[in-house]
């Protein structure tokens, strides 16, 4: 079965989705990412969706789940490169992606993750922003 490659980028993992994501691929990505986060002790996950022509409720739910699982493993997920037409459609569809951080591109996504790493430890575990 084909899989989406996961690259290590400093303390983060980078996933570039290049194909039209079918359901099994999405589910495999969820599993692979979880394993890789633990293996590398990654602090962040960048998911580049600039090649995706649509995000429907299934893909949206997958992104949400990845973000939620990553968070439990102390890694932040940032979805980068969403096309404007996809963003417009997502909102009308009713998907909020509330648990997912977004950034315009990989560079800005990395900056966001670095910001988080630079923040001092907080007593109550809640991070600002």
């Amino acid at each position, binding site marked *: 079965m084909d899989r989406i490659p996961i690259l290590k980028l400093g303390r983060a993992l980078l996933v570039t989705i290049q194909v*039209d994501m*079918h359901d099994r691929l999405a589910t495999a990505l969820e599993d692979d990412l979880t394993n890789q986060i633990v293996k590398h002790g990654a602090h962040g996950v960048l998911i580049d969706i600039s090649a995706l022509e649509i995000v429907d409720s299934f893909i949206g*739910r997958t992104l949400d789940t990845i973000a939620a699982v990553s968070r439990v493993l102390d890694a932040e997920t940032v979805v980068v490169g969403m096309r404007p037409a996809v963003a417009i459609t997502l909102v009308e569809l009713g998907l909020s992606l509330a648990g997912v951080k977004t950034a315009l591109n990989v560079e800005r996504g990395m900056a966001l993750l670095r910001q988080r790493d630079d923040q001092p430890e907080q007593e109550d575990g809640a991070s600002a922003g």
Partner: protein
Amino acid sequence: MAPAPADSTVLQIRSSDDVVLIRQQVRARAAEAGLGLVDQTKIITAASELARNTLDYGGGGTMAMTMVNDGLRRGIRLVFDDKGPGIADIQQALRDGYTTGNGLGLGLGGAKRLCNEFAIESTVGVGTRITIARWK
């Protein structure tokens, strides 16, 4: 139910790969019909939701795709058919957040918002037909 018009393309929906195929076919047709990028994205997303419902709840089925050009409007119309259990309460099924699976309950309501035309015909024990269209 009436057969699909003669000039329509009928695609099978039997696996999640078919859902991907449908997205590609709808994109090609929507572009051909002259829809802009945002409108294309909207109808493809709606089609993806309905195709998945056809697969998950209808036990598979078909999608018929027709170009519409009646002088007043240009666009595409998609008809999803299945011979599944049907939908007993359509208003309830359309409500955001309502799901009998493990989804978000956004597909039907979302597809309706993304299209210019949206109609559900469903008979319990017989099947479901959902028709959508998007104009240029």
